[in-house]
């Protein structure tokens, strides 16, 4: 068998083995799960403002996000988040829950490589690029704002 033929057959084999993302159901699932997470955030935010009326709007949002981060981190720990994630796709990645999951998940996975170089280092394998790009972009915005 020549090499080109072999590669072709291998590619079609890989293609058949890859789990296919069915477009329409996944779009629908991403929509309603994502929407539900945001609604949950709004409920927490309203509850915080209702129970503690003197909290500022900005602090209330910070608390809301911290609660969502806690829930996502916990659900990742007990292994439930991955199942929801497989079902909802971007519906769980795009909300702040995805950011939290992206830190907790490698933290648990790389624990067996040691606490320092495993867990603590690998925590930022996905969140690192996010924090770096966000920080740099915000500094550019600050710089432009200072000049103009």
């Amino acid at each position, binding site marked *: 068998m020549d090499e080109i033929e072999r590669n072709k057959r291998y590619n079609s084999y890989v293609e058949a083995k890859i789990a296919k993302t069915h477009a329409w159901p996944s779009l629908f699932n991403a929509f309603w799960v994502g929407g539900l997470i945001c609604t949950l955030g*709004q409920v927490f935010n309203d509850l915080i403002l209702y129970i503690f009326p003197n909290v500022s709007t900005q602090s209330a949002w910070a608390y809301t*996000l*911290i609660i969502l981060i806690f829930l996502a981190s916990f659900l990742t720990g007990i292994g439930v988040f991955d199942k929801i994630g497989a079902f909802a796709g971007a519906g769980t990645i795009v*909300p702040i829950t995805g950011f939290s999951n*992206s830190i907790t998940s490698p933290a648990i996975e790389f624990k067996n490589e040691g606490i320092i170089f495993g867990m603590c280092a690998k925590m930022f394998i996905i969140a690192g690029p996010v924090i770096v790009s966000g*920080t740099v*972009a915000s500094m550019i915005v*600050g710089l432009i704002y200072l000049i103009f």
Partner: protein
Amino acid sequence: MSDWYVYLIVFGTGGLVCLLGQILVIKTKMTTARILVTFVILGVFLQAIGVYEPISEFCKAGVNVPIIGFGASLAKGAINAVKSSGVLGIFTGGLTATAGGIAASVFFAFIFGIIFKAKTKKL
């Protein structure tokens, strides 16, 4: 508590943002990290050109909970800090505004990382 239709708006707009993310996943086969980076930069950009505040007024958690809100508070923090403390604000503003979220994510990841063991993945 907000009126019921506010929750409807939040559900709809938040869902749309995630739908947009899912379209990116399907069309470009982007990984989680790339999706998150794209949306953070989008948030920074929207805040910088001043469009984010009116959108946030209308959508509330619909844009604040998605990672776009994270980018927006980075940019907002930087702008406000430049107003109040000048050049130093460029360096301190962004991360100060988002410190709560980052610290919480790291802290909970550390705690639950210690407590829970990795599960073998079933595909």
